[in-house]
């Protein structure tokens, strides 16, 4: 795995982007906008399931509008995150906080997919089931936790 990381770090276009202040700032910008879309949209759907937001809307139409933004955000986050990771892969890969963050992202995605698939069923029920509220709550906590974990990464790796 470390050899793969070394190879990633030496890809010419990755080196060019990593060493250019303008290009790497653009990559960060895409990463930020991507997770604003991803976390913002997912959080509103989770809050709606919890009964705390958008109560004038049925679940399915709200999610129908917001989930495509979440998936678009995810695409932006993955593309930019890959470039950010590849540029310093050998530093990131062995760091515990980075691994925790990626683990949280995968868990959050899993919960996100469950919520998305179950929504039509919950929407037909007379009231949102308690299990649904728990799922939405865990999803919300995981996404907000992912932001914190992501921000802690540079704090644990001096010089990034």
């Amino acid at each position, binding site marked *: 795995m470390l050899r793969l990381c070394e190879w990633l770090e030496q890809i010419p276009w990755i080196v060019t982007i990593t060493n250019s202040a303008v290009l790497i700032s653009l990559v960060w910008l895409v990463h*930020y906008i991507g997770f604003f879309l991803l976390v913002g949209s997912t959080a509103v759907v989770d809050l709606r399931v919890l009964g705390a937001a958008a109560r004038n809307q049925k679940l399915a139409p709200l999610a129908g509008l917001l989930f495509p933004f979440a998936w678009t955000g995810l695409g932006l986050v993955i593309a930019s995150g890959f470039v950010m990771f590849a540029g310093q892969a050998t530093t990131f890969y062995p760091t515990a906080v980075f691994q925790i963050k990626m683990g949280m992202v995968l868990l959050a995605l899993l919960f996100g997919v469950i919520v998305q698939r179950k929504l039509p069923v919950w929407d037909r029920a007379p009231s949102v089931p308690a299990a649904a509220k728990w799922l939405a709550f865990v999803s919300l906590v995981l996404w907000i936790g992912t932001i914190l974990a992501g921000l802690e990464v540079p704090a644990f790796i001096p010089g990034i």
Partner: protein
Amino acid sequence: MHTWLVAICDRLQNIRLVVWLVTAQYAYPFIQWTHFTGLSLWLGTTLALDFRLLGAGKRFQTAAELSDALFSWNWLGLGIAVLGGFTLFATAAVGYIDNPAFRLKLGVLSPLALAWHIFVQRKSRIWGRTPETPAVAKLAGLMEIVLWVSVATAAVWIPNY
């Protein structure tokens, strides 16, 4: 004016709590976290309305309904973002007020984007009565997306000075 501003920033930066936030090893990311969590809510809900005005997700709800549904969490998001942002500013206030990217962000782009947001949000009640939005609504939504992306661009440029 500038000396006076520097003096205020200097005092802000030396508040005991602020000094602690800077020196405690893993505390700083918590302030960034507040800012970014607020921004996710603020921009997630703001951009959703802008894209709806542009014509996304027509079959789900009108822009007026969406604006109404997102209103409280939209502004709560801004409140959290401002709280985090102000604390971030306080940790290095003297440096920030002379940073050109920060000045552009806070002095020009953010007020402009915020004013435009209020305008768009208010107008969306009229523009968004029917599933199809008028051309002026599309233009206004697009303008707002451009404005917030400019704010974010200025923000990521701050550390380069």
